[in-house]
């Protein structure tokens, strides 16, 4: 991955970070934005790394912690923000809200908040690629917790059986709600579950976005060459609670501090600067641009019209 691409990764992570920090901020004030916000702060390297490895025709299926995935796949901050605000101008006319934003424009075809619910659907979109002999892959994002759902099992077995072009990205952020890994499963590495389907499993440092990018690139080639699906476990950490309403009483403070040391943004920035290809000034330029993008998104959302109540009746059937 060349320097320019790495800078793009860095910029994308920063965009995700600032976009979601803004959400957390806004959600403190029920007048501005009600409800619980589920954000991926600390995990941006996964979204950015995966997004960079994909082409526009590639499909993503994602979950409740999706904003980063959608941004990295190329969705517009304005339209995501407007959807989160429940406005008519949002990607889904306010029907989805923060939890299920679908962006067919960038082939983000399903965002489901049913834990594990997207995994069998990814098998379907991958099946379609094989059936129509089209050269796209499907990436399916889910968490460590989701890997305990039956849907994970059924889906991975079918994907492997049929050699489908699908990359399963398990974002292991150590928690499933308030339960730590060791409180929801005895396996140490979710990647080990791949063997139960005779599938290749791989562990990646989920805070190292170029590493995520490389792994997904390889997996993408595997998929397109017919070598079958891959399960990639990205080891990372959720800095905040499950959502903004979570006081994180169960999350050890020193654990949080340790992981903050490994901030994916700080890490990549430092590495680029060490290599002498990036300056603090360039970073500040990113901050300014992104600050503008986020402000603009909020303004777009806030000034967008609410849907008319009766619009609720639309879009159920074709």
């Amino acid at each position, binding site marked *: 991955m060349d320097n320019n691409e790495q800078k793009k990764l860095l910029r994308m992570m920063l965009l995700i970070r600032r976009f979601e920090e803004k959400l957390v901020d806004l959600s403190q004030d029920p007048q501005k934005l009600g409800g619980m916000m589920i954000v991926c702060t600390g995990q941006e390297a996964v979204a950015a790394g995966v997004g960079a490895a994909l082409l526009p025709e590639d499909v993503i299926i994602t979950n409740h912690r999706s904003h980063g995935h959608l941004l990295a796949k190329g969705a517009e901050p304005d339209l995501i923000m407007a959807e989160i605000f429940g406005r008519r101008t949002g990607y889904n006319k306010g*029907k989805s809200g923060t939890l299920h934003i679908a962006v067919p424009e960038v082939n983000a075809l*399903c965002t489901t908040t049913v834990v594990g619910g997207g995994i*069998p*659907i990814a098998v379907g979109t991958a099946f379609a690629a094989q059936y129509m002999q089209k050269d796209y892959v499907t990436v399916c994002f889910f968490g460590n917790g989701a890997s305990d759902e039956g849907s994970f099992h*059924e889906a991975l077995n*079918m994907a492997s059986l049929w050699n489908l072009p699908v990359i399963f990205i398990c974002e292991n952020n150590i928690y499933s709600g308030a339960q730590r890994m060791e409180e929801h499963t005895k396996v140490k590495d979710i990647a080990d579950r791949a063997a139960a389907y005779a599938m290749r499993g791989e562990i990646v440092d989920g805070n190292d976005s170029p590493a995520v990018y490389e792994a997904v690139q390889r997996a993408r080639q595997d998929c397109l060459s017919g070598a079958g699906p891959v399960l990639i476990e990205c080891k990372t950490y959720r800095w905040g609670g499950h959502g903004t309403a979570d006081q994180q009483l169960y999350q050890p403070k020193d654990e949080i501090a340790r992981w903050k040391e490994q901030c994916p943004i700080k890490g990549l920035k430092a590495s680029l600067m060490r290599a002498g290809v990036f300056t603090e000034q360039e970073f500040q330029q990113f901050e300014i641009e992104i600050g503008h993008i986020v402000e603009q998104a909020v303004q777009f959302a806030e000034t967008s019209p609410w849907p008319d109540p009766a619009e609720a009746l639309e879009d159920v059937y074709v």
Partner: protein
Amino acid sequence: MQELTLGQAVNQALREEMSRDERVFIAGEGVGVSIHSGPYGATNGLLEEFGPRRVKDTPVSEAGIAGLAVGASVMGLLPVVEIMFNPFFTIAADQIVNHAAKLRYLSGGKSKFPLVVRVKTGAGIGAGCQHSHNLEAWVAHSPGLKVVMPSTPADAKGLLKSAIRDENPVIFIEDMILHFVPGSVPEGDYTIPIGVADIKKPGRDVTVVTWSKMLGAAFKAAGQLEQEGISVEIVDLRTLVPLDEATILESVEKTGRLVVLHEATRTGGFGGEIAALVAEKAFDALKAPIKRITAPDIPVPFSKPLEDFYIPNESSLMEAIRGLL
């Protein structure tokens, strides 16, 4: 016209649609290589004709099968997947009710999910309550789905072809006893619109609203009552969602009396929906209480005399009708 069983009619509809449109494929447990190699099987011979690319035998994974359909359909394919028996639908329920039915809405109308889920159903097959359990009321109560439940081979063919061409998720429920019952079926590209009920027998004195296997009991009762001078109109819903309210209401406005007949258990069954519709919108026409003839609120028992007791029949229907006159 050809004589086919309902199973064969389904088979013909699948064959014709697969020939007509390359995007149609079928998937499910044993839809290709099956433990039942008889000629009545709904998917019999399709593997031989269309090959393993378009006829996918799956693992025993109902959630996976349904998810396959959801994902394939949003990419533009037209999946027709099979859930072997209605009780196993429960395992696929999340995919169907929370995903197939809702994802279009959640996309703000941008995506569509043109899939068909074929579900086999019904008591009378001597297999007990984990194979026989009519749950059409569940899917009828799940906005975003269409629900079709044919009673004759011709309807099955015409409706399945429409279901496959419909751009929405359609749950297509086939009674297992009807699978073996023959009837005349139009050749060629015969379709029946989804959402249109059928007056299977006109009559003056009482309306019987029914669907699927119970049409047979309705006919038997109507035949016998004719001899007593009672004229029964039989409305076969064929489609539960969208419901053909007009046909039901017109019939009751004419006869002034309604009996709803279904095989599913009583409490919470779809008969309540019909009764509620009529009690609201044709109230003034009603000359007598609305009756429901249904299975009792029990699981389907195995033993023959118990299973026979479970399935509603013409005697209880006749008794109900006589009671209204």
